[in-house]
């Protein structure tokens, strides 16, 4: 009897947890849209503005630090997420796994503002499953006072004269990817030998590296504790405003270009409300607000007109379009291929 009681207790607890996560309505009857976003990626005023214009909807935002974690949270059963903002390779994966809802363009007024060059990413040319939120490149940030010269190539990250002044990104595809670019290969290669070469190059580079990191690299560069770091354009633009010695370049060998897009998950119960929010986010004044806040480039020319001129002149925020010609998008890689990248990075980590 006692045993039965404790089992019952456990079940009740579990039921309580599930009931908590599946709520699609607030106590006062507003529809709740669960929005899974990156940290520091939206102007804090934007959600209150939306909720004021749409009093029947409440946005519940959660943040994650990486595409991979976004995937884990969005696809774990029992969690209620309606809108996600993955990068293009993760969108591709979600599309392949049939997890995304088709966006109804007849209900989106603002899609027309999105520039063509980001619409034409190969994975979703018609914006059927995603609409671009931000775009950017993964280039090289350097401190011109410390390097003493202008830099235009990934070679600098492997140059012994910058020993212990180099920071590297602690992320599998970004780091293996930049080594692949330096070697003249594609960042989406499925060739084991090319990946091995990239791993060997990174192992060789290891004694030169001061530290591997992600978001914390920004602070180290602003402090002037290191001279060079590969960095996402948005983080670079932010850093350059705090330290005028910092310069951003898309190396001549090329770089990764990315587009983060808003998608609605197929599992949503609040499709219409979610779509209204996605459309609101594409309105040029809102896109401009967000761009000024997170320093990532907006894909809308009309929004650029509203952005602060200092930011507009920043080469990380608004790079010359001809520099983008060499840039390559990530493609979603199958598990077996991804494992080759993972093993390559492991070799670097244990070296």
């Amino acid at each position: 009897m006692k045993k039965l009681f404790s089992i019952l207790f456990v079940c009740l607890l579990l039921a309580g947890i599930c009931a908590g996560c599946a709520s699609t309505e607030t106590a006062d009857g507003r529809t709740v849209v669960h929005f899974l976003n990156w940290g520091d990626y939206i102007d804090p005023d934007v959600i209150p503005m939306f909720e004021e214009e749409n009093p029947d909807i409440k946005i519940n935002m959660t943040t994650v630090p990486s595409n991979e974690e976004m995937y884990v949270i969005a696809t774990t059963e029992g969690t209620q997420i309606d809108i996600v903002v993955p990068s293009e390779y993760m969108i591709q994966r979600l599309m392949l796994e049939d997890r995304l809802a088709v966006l109804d363009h007849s209900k989106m007024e603002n899609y027309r503002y999105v520039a063509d060059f980001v619409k034409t990413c190969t994975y979703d040319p018609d914006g059927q499953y995603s609409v671009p939120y931000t775009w950017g490149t993964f280039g090289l940030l350097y401190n011109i006072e410390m390097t003493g010269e202008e830099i235009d190539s990934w070679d600098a990250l492997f140059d012994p004269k910058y020993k212990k002044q180099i920071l590297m990104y602690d992320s599998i595809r970004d780091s293996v990817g930049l080594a692949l670019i330096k070697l003249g290969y594609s960042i989406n290669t499925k060739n084991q030998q090319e990946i091995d070469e990239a791993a060997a190059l990174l192992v060789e580079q290891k004694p030169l590296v001061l530290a591997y990191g992600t978001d914390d690299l920004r602070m180290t560069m602003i402090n002037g504790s290191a001279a060079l770091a590969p960095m996402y354009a948005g983080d670079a633009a932010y850093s350059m405003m705090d330290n005028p010695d910092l310069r951003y370049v898309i190396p001549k060998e090329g770089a990764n270009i990315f587009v983060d897009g808003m998608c609605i998950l197929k599992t949503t119960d609040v499709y219409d409300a979610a779509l209204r929010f996605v459309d609101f986010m594409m309105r040029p004044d809102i896109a401009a607000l967000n761009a000024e806040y997170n320093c990532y480039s907006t894909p809308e020319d009309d929004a650029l007109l509203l952005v602060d001129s200092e930011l507009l002149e920043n080469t990380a925020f608004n790079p010359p379009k001809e520099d983008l010609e060499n840039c390559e998008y990530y493609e979603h890689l199958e598990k077996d291929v991804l494992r080759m990248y993972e093993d390559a990075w492991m070799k670097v980590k244990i070296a």
Partner: protein
Amino acid sequence: MKNRQISGVINSRKVFALPYVAWIAIFTVAPLILILLYAFTDTGSGGVMILTAENLARAFSPLYMTVFWRSVLMALIATAVCLLLGYPVAYMLSRMKQSRAAILSILFILPMWMNFLLRTYAWRALLDNAGIINQGLMALGIEPVQFLYTEGAIIFGLVYNFLPFMILPIYSVFQKMDTSCIQAAQDLGANKWQTFWRVTLPLSKGGIVSGVTMVFMPAMTTFVITRLLGGSHFMMYGDLIEMEFLLMSEWNFGSALAVVMLILTILFMWLMRKYDKEGEGGALL
């Protein structure tokens, strides 16, 4: 000893144990079962779950075992340093006047009231090349030292964070120790060293065993210190498990690694229990 206490409680006041039983069932037993389930299975074609030992075999492959042994080594060094630093401190505390010892032990515990991450971030600022310590060195005319992002910094971080877990159990054993044994040894002609080696040390074994357990296990599984103080040059086993779950979405392989970790934990507990047959490990509680 602990187990006997728990079963005693269940026999006499069963109802009060229920929240605890439920807690353990939901947050310890159920996740353990899930980890085992994930570790021995994989998702085959079409999303079907298949039974396989492949993930475990991969976890035992040389690439991942290198990370494992490195973590063991780092944790052992940190534990040894904690023991060497903590033992004399615990001894001195126990020989002080009660009031003074109370104040000093609070000073040891005080940092633990602050968040572990915050403290580690603070050390980053202190150890940085442009940090306070290096500025002080430069003011004295000494070349700045690269403290941050070295193996030494990781060991330091481990020792700093886990030292109180070594001091407290040893201190509590010393407090309860029957000093007449030591006096008897002295009366019978043992010199200071003989007294220490043959009386004090064996009597404090229980405290050492719980201290070592409480430092070694968390040191082995830690995962942020390597990132914050070690600049991610090296990976500890905790980092590896985190990476598999969060970055690679490889729950099956991540669970297999967690199982390897679990095996080590069980082996270590068994080893410690063997050295502590009298059950003095409970001295901590």
